[in-house]
């Protein structure tokens, strides 16, 4: 093993940006457009409303957001890392099943899991009703934890977001070689010590990546916190914007939120800077699986069963019950259109986002300069920003551009070009790219990080152009990382709601829109068919994803 310097081909600081670098910078800035638009409102005075916010609710927004994020951080780590470790190094009944099934909660939108648990656990729900009739209690005589609370929101979000940590750390555990552990064992460390001194530190970059995805998604969540009545930054932005009708103050709240995120991202980058591991030994062997027996077997089984049951089986089961017993939805032609639209969007967005991420990620490797890194970080911030804010941040500049072009064309040629960008699916796909670039980029970068810089150098010295190095060397090695990037964005777009709702063209609905329209009308049961279809469609890529992760350990590391 060697701890390498960042992979740099161009090390000269003074060089002038060439074609590639300019392209990378421009695309990154274009994708950062919504973020820039929101930040541009910082200079608009919003005195009265801002003072009102500071005096009344800002402290609440701050403390709730901080508590929510910290809680989810603990939750996803506790659920994600042990399960990833267990399915990597132990053999126990059902392990092969758990390997992929533990990713299933990823297919459930956070607001849907919130609705289902509320339906189950609420004072008028079946669980409390059963308790009351069993023990003859009446309301007020007993205490029952309220799911619609900050703690409840932490649990809901942890249950659907832990797969990010699970997936990333598992990929990392699988990629670690036996030789390091053997070295540790020779030095006399026991299994726990090995885990905490070798395995976990080695996996730290991957764990942090998964964690940051989960936390960014938490900050952007609107559906769950709104339904649970928790005042966070996200709900505050909406309230200020729509209730107080002050878009400047709302944008400033959003800018404040983004500043936090940006600081977090910088910290994460900083913590990872010295942590780049490249496996250079050719004698690569997998970690051996340890067969468990007795009470240990059952403990590990239970450990894996827990997140799967609460994160998937129960909510999906509740949806099934609703779908069969109550929902009025019929599977007519219109419903198939919904599925078609949803798939079209998800596939296109996943491809586009992957191409962009590859372009940017590789650009960053070629040009490890601060300006490039900064531009790319800025463009990846969209994941932490509520979809509605992104949608408006995308809509304003493109509608403006459309109208300028239209004016110009009318003036010069007497023809109207209308809304070329903002009136078509283009704007929606662009918004998805902005929103989900971070997901794709993380996968691509972690894939790239596994290719040792020596290989770049060797290929370049043999006369390959950077593009050819990417095509011939990196892409084949990174195949499963690219696949993960595609699938993750696919599942995310499947669940995406706010941007779709605002930016879609006429007569164009998706499954998430349908589920939300019924659910927000408080017809939870009726929304179950659409929700269940989202889950069902999402399960397929999730299973594929898990196979990609399993293979990544073998395939990606071998060619070194």
């Amino acid at each position, binding site marked *: 093993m060697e701890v390498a310097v960042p992979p740099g081909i161009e090390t000269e600081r003074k060089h002038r940006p060439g074609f590639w670098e300019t392209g990378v910078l421009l695309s990154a800035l274009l994708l950062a457009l919504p973020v820039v638009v929101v930040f541009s409102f910082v200079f608009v005075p919003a005195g009265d409303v801002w003072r009102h916010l500071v005096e009344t609710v800002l402290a609440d927004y701050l403390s709730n957001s901080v508590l929510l994020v910290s809680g989810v951080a603990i939750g996803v780590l506790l659920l994600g890392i042990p399960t990833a470790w267990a399915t990597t190094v132990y053999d126990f009944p059902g392990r092969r099943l758990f390997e992929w099934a533990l990713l299933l909660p990823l297919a459930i939108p956070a607001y849907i899991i919130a609705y289902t648990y509320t339906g189950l656990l609420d004072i008028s*729900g079946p669980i409390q009703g059963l308790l009351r009739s069993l023990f003859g209690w009446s309301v007020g005589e007993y205490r029952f934890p309220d799911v619609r609370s900050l703690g409840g929101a932490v649990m809901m979000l942890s249950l659907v977001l832990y797969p990010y940590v699970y997936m990333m750390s598992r990929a990392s555990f699988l990629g670690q070689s036996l030789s390091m552990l053997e070295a540790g064992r020779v030095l006399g460390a026991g299994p726990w010590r090995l885990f905490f001194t070798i395995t976990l530190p080695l996996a730290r970059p991957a764990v942090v990546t998964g964690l940051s995805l989960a936390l960014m998604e938490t900050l952007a969540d609107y559906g769950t916190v709104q339904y649970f*009545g928790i005042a966070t930054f996200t709900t505050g932005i909406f309230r200020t914007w729509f209730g107080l009708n002050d878009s400047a103050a709302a944008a400033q709240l959003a800018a404040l939120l983004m500043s936090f995120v940006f600081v977090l991202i910088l910290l994460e980058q900083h913590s990872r800077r010295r942590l780049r591991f490249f496996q250079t030994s050719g004698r690569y062997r997998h970690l051996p699986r340890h067969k468990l027996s007795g009470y240990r077997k059952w403990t590990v089984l239970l450990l894996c069963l827990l997140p799967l049951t609460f994160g998937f089986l129960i909510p999906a089961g509740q949806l099934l019950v609703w779908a069969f017993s109550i929902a009025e939805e019929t599977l007519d032609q219109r419903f198939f259109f919904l599925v078609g639209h949803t798939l079209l969007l998800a596939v296109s967005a996943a491809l586009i986002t992957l191409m962009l991420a590859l372009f940017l990620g590789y650009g960053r490797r070629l040009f490890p300069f601060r300006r490039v890194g900064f531009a790319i970080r800025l463009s990846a911030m969209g994941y932490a920003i509520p979809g509605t804010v992104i949608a408006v941040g995308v809509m304003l500049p493109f509608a403006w551009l459309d109208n300028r072009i239209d004016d110009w064309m009318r003036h010069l040629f007497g023809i109207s070009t209308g*809304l070329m960008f903002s009136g078509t699916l283009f704007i929606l796909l662009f918004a998805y790219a902005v929103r989900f670039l971070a997901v794709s980029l993380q996968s691509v970068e972690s894939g790239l990080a596994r290719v040792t810089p020596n290989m770049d150098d060797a290929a370049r010295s043999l006369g390959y152009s950077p593009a050819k190095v990417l095509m011939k060397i990196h892409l084949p090695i990174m195949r499963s990382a690219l696949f993960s990037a595609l699938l993750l964005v696919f599942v995310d777009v499947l669940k995406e709601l706010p941007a779709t709702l605002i930016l879609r063209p006429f007569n164009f609905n998706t499954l998430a829109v349908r589920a939300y329209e019924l659910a927000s009308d408080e017809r939870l049961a009726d929304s179950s068919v659409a929700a269940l279809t989202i889950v069902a469609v999402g399960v397929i890529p999730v299973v594929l994803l898990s196979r990609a992760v399993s293979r990544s350990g073998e395939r990606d590391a071998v060619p070194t």
Partner: protein
Amino acid sequence: MAFKSTFFAPLSVILTVAALFAEGVQAAGEVNLYSARKEALIKPLLDRFTEQTGITVNLVTGGADALLKRLQSEGRNSPADLLITTDAGRLYRAREAGVTQPVVTEALRQAVPEAYREPDGHWYGLSLRARPIFYAKARVSAEELSSYEGLADPKWAGRICIRSSGNIYNQSLVASMIAHQGEAKSEQWALGLVKNFARSPKGGDRDQIKAAAAGECDIAVANTYYYGGMISGKDEAERQAAEKVAVFWPNQSGRGTHVNVSGAALTAHARNRDNAVKLMEFLVQPESQSWYAEVNYEYPVREGVAWSALLQQWGRFKSDNLNLSELGKYNSQAVMIMDRAGWK
């Protein structure tokens, strides 16, 4: 560069597909609609309109605020001809933003009473949404209730369920109070009401009714169509919950029960103006008016239209005839009052 063409070929294919989906917006015999009424609560009527007139209706649904923002940023190139919202506050805001235009026809003026339309014709109400008080029949008798103001009385301490102040119907309710009795009194009232909350506000209107039925509180404030949905729905638990509460119409000796409208406005740059006006007139026809009640338990805005059996069962009531533009005018103040009162 080989690299570029392989990677950007799929992109151009996707954009072509995108362009295909967007075509056909400007052909004749159409009307384009931005609607905050959910698809399920407007599409059947639109289909009926298309059947009768041959005019195709293109629909985008979404949050009223977001649709309004979209309308604003699209400017004169906006394809939308009509904007439909589910509350008067947003219609007021659309008018303020300059994205609507006045339309006055005999049919519209006759169908929609004065309180439920903008004086110059910038928007017209389509259906009424009443927000009365619901009480748990087992623990409260109707005689104990009088008005919204009465809910601030200390006798209700720990007994009231109402959803969050982020909800537009609560914002409108407080705005109507400000319009009637000024800011200071309304704030006093909000403070008293918050003290009487049984729990920190959460969930939707149905959740408040369910909590009252289950005994977590005795009083709930909710829109009637949610109650109607519970009574007539297939969910056994919801139906049982709804049967445990009853409607009380507040402020009957004074200004009347608070109502809001869902309404329609003609956009400033409507290209299919005639078709849009036809659609507006269609939506206030008697047959359409009774549809709102049958499907979503809303009250017709037009007088003389028969109410469905369920609505009749809840009883006739006097509604607040404040011009609903006022709700939009006082909305920000209402939110600030609720923030100061600690109404989450």
